[in-house]
């Protein structure tokens, strides 16, 4: 894992001292709210519905056990005992006092964590495949490149006031778990003819105008990574619209100018910038790479035949193939049926840190799907890991299934929300559990956003749910057939929205229709939707209309 050097540590300490002074000046009246707001946003501090919210970056989703313990400390000492893992591999604290936030940031700084650029019109936390460094299908570990991008983008003087926020995601696997096609820049690391490089995708994004990103370069050699990304952001900084917040993201810049025009401008800017990068970035990359070595794996015997069906179900559902046959990747579900998706208590965080130390070489990851990953677990240790998790209420075997729902904070917390998301997710998960059909349904991604900003990625949910305010009442629009993977697509709106108390029955009808119409148990919801089209699903959602039409 990347260890902060003296420069990083000093930079963070200076930045935290600066913010502490800004908070003091706000509290003593020397700074107005208008002056203070952009400063607090640059340090991840929002004012939400009920309180301030502190958003802490977890760069490319990678955490050490000690870092996880510090996240637990923050939850316990300055919040209400829990934190919320988000779809951008961040953690949010929902209840800090403004006057406590400088202390929280200092405590984070002791383990090299921070909240810089988790808000504002800057380059945000660089995200990555949550199985990075561990997955059997991985070509390259994307994290050294993500770390290089983090260092380049942090406090980049030219990019502190972009037209709008800017998000970069990196994967090193052909199976895209980082939703790279829904980011401002998506990078797919690959090796071609023995050379390391990237497919570069630009202009993806969700929100009000969802777009699947477009490939601007099939293969960018690794030594060109920073100048090329700088060229993209620089062109966007010049060309991106500042007159209309809703048209300010690069996806609109690409859409309005066309990919060819964007490519020409990016290449021209790249030609100017390339000579300025004289190789120091590549030296830095070498230093960073040296810090992402694999742990000293201890060989593992294979598992004896299992007699506990609950353990077997958990292994089947919550583990993924590791680079090594004798290890597995464990996904800890933070989606217990009926609980808030992505919320973990301080005790749970500490327990996960302890398990990581004992069984996973001290490493953890946070997924954009709001779960926690133990990237390297000896197969022989799986029963012990499961037992420890289950005792802490973390043993739910539902990863990738219908109750593994992404839900943004919605109107329970978020000042921008138009409706709630969390209770809808809680009720769907509970209902699916009651019906006892979750494992029969198989792979199904339900994603819920509490407003058009789409932090809950509803556009790329196989079933997407968008909470809206229709004439002062919560109303939920359903989209079908979205996909955030390497076969990315934007979900299609099914029809009129549903009232708050009608949305769970509507989802139930959809799922039952899928079970009725699928070719066989191996055909997933998404595959069935792609084969059959929307008609049978719409008929299930709107039975009255279907009956009238018949």
């Amino acid at each position: 894992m990347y260890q902060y050097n003296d420069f990083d540590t000093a930079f963070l300490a200076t930045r935290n001292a600066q913010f502490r002074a800004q908070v003091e000046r706000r509290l003593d009246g020397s700074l107005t709210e208008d002056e203070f707001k952009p400063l607090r946003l640059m340090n991840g501090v929002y004012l939400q519905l009920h309180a301030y919210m502190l958003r802490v970056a977890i760069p490319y989703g990678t955490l050490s056990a000690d870092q996880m313990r510090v996240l637990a400390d923050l939850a316990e000492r300055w919040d209400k005992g829990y934190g919320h893992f988000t779809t951008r591999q961040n953690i949010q604290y929902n209840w800090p006092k403004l006057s406590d936030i400088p202390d929280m940031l200092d405590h984070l700084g002791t383990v090299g964590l921070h909240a810089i650029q988790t808000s504002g019109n800057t380059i945000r936390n660089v995200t990555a495949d949550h199985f990075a460094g561990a997955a059997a299908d991985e070509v390259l570990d994307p994290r050294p490149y993500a770390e290089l991008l983090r260092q380049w983008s942090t406090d980049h003087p030219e990019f502190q006031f972009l037209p709008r926020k800017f998000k970069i995601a990196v994967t090193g696997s052909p199976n895209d778990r980082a939703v790279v096609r829904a980011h401002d820049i998506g990078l797919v690391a690959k090796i071609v003819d023995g050379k390391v490089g990237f497919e570069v995708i630009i202009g993806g994004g969700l929100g009000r105008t969802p777009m699947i990103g477009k490939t601007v370069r099939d293969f960018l050699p690794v030594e060109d990574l920073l100048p090329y990304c700088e060229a993209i952001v620089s062109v966007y900084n010049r060309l991106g619209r500042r007159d209309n917040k809703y048209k300010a993201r690069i996806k609109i810049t690409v859409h309005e100018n066309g990919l060819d025009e964007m490519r020409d401008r990016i290449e021209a800017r790249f030609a100017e910038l390339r000579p300025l990068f004289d190789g120091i970035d590549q030296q830095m990359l070498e230093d960073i790479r040296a810090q992402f070595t694999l742990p000293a794996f201890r060989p593992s015997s294979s598992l004896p035949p299992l007699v506990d069906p609950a353990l077997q179900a958990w292994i089947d559902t919550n583990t993924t193939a590791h680079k090594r046959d004798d290890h597995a990747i464990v996904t800890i579900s933070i989606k217990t049926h009926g609980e808030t998706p992505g919320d973990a208590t301080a005790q749970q965080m500490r327990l996960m840190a302890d398990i990581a130390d004992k069984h996973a070489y001290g490493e953890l990851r946070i997924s954009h799907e709001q779960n926690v990953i133990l990237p390297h677990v000896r197969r022989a240790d799986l029963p012990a890991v499961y037992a420890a998790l289950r005792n802490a209420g973390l043993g739910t075997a539902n990863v990738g299934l219908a109750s593994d729902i992404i839900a943004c904070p919605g109107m329970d917390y978020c000042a921008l929300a138009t409706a709630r998301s969390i209770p809808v997710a809680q009720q769907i998960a509970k209902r699916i559990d009651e019906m006892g059909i979750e494992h029969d349904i198989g792979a199904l991604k339900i994603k819920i956003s509490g407003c058009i900003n789409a932090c809950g990625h509803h556009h790329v949910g196989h079933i997407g749910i968008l909470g809206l305010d229709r004439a002062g009442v919560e109303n939920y629009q359903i989209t079908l057939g979205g996909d955030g993977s390497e076969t990315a697509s934007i979900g299609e709106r099914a029809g009129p929205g549903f009232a708050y108390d009608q949305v769970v029955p509507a989802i139930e009808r959809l799922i039952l229709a899928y079970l009725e119409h699928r070719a066989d148990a191996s055909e997933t919801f998404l595959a069935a939707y792609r084969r059959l089209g929307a008609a049978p699903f719409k008929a299930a959602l709107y039975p009255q209309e279907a009956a009238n039409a018949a």
Partner: protein
Amino acid sequence: MSRRPFTPKVVTANLLVEGDVVYLSAADAWVPHLSQAEVFEDEAVAEARLLDAARQTEVVVGVYLADVTLGPDGPQPSHFREAFRASGPTNYPHGKAHEVA
């Protein structure tokens, strides 16, 4: 075009330090419960009180007028957003709805 008739309002904000949702009372204090808020049925008075309140920049942030309806138990939020602000999140027993009175 005719203007929409003025509907009853309260002044609301968040506390600068704690971030808590508060309402302006008739005694000019920032109070935690909507039931304690002063209700304005006259637009000019509401606007004047809003301006006064907005000057208290060292105590509160984000001051605005929120719509309420008047019922037997005092002011009630007109919109569900204000209802959640008044009672707290619905996924945990954190909010004011769960406080011991």
